């Protein structure tokens, strides 16, 4: 019997593999920052994840950052680890072409679902910075990374609806 609070997410094996790759890259980005916290991040993607809390008061912004940033990055890293563990894909093995389209089912309890929501939203923030998205209508059909961005949005939307159901 399935717990009524469990959300079941169906994707293809290749989607799950790509997502696991993205989340692993995200974890690496967080780790780099955790190793060198101090001052506002120079990487704009990281700066977006830990924005200045006091835009008009540099001293208060620095104090807030000193008090909160390390713990926030740590929670992000835990979320990413939760997502990776629950995807259940072995990223060290390449899926064969025949395997790529097979269904891959992910079951998420409420806590895992929250980690997925926060992580997918954060991945989109990072990608949006890398893609230079300043406006909701910014889109380049020829750049495959926009496809990844849209796909993350599609998956996030689905999970939000599942969470609100």
């Amino acid at each position, binding site marked *: 019997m399935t717990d009524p609070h469990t959300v079941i997410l169906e994707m293809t094996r290749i989607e799950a593999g790509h997502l696991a790759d993205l989340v692993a890259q995200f974890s690496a980005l967080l780790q780099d920052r955790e190793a060198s916290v101090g001052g506002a991040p120079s990487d704009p993607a990281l700066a977006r994840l830990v*924005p200045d809390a006091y835009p*008009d008061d540099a001293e208060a912004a620095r104090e807030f950052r000193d008090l909160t940033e390390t713990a926030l990055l740590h929670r992000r890293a835990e979320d990413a680890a939760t997502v990776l563990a629950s995807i259940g894909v072995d990223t060290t093995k390449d899926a064969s072409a025949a395997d790529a389209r097979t269904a891959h089912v992910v079951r998420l309890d409420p806590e895992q679902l929250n980690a997925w929501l926060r992580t997918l939203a954060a991945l989109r923030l990072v990608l949006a910075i890398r893609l230079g998205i300043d406006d909701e209508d910014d889109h380049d059909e020829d750049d495959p990374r926009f496809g990844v961005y849209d796909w993350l949005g599609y998956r996030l939307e689905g999970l939000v609806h599942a969470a609100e159901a």
Partner: protein
Amino acid sequence: MSLTTPDIREDVEFDTSSDADRPWQTVVWNDPVNLMSYVVHVFRQYFGFSVEEATRLMLAVHHDGHAVVAEGPREQMELHTNAMHDYGLWATLRKAPR
């Protein structure tokens, strides 16, 4: 008049609009990335708002560029701001404008 009674001036005027009296606010800013449905979900989950209130605030962020989502003591507003950052929302805090 007793010598031990402090000399209290009765005519001190308190400026009710002074900085110390104004509460702090948590402000969420619009961004081109976060999904409307996600922002509503965050407001509901974290603040416990109704769908209507969460949607009203999300739309205010979207159309006006920002919205005040909470007001109160500074420490509490810092907690809220930090929580919004956990969700990936762009939040700041400020003193309530006069």
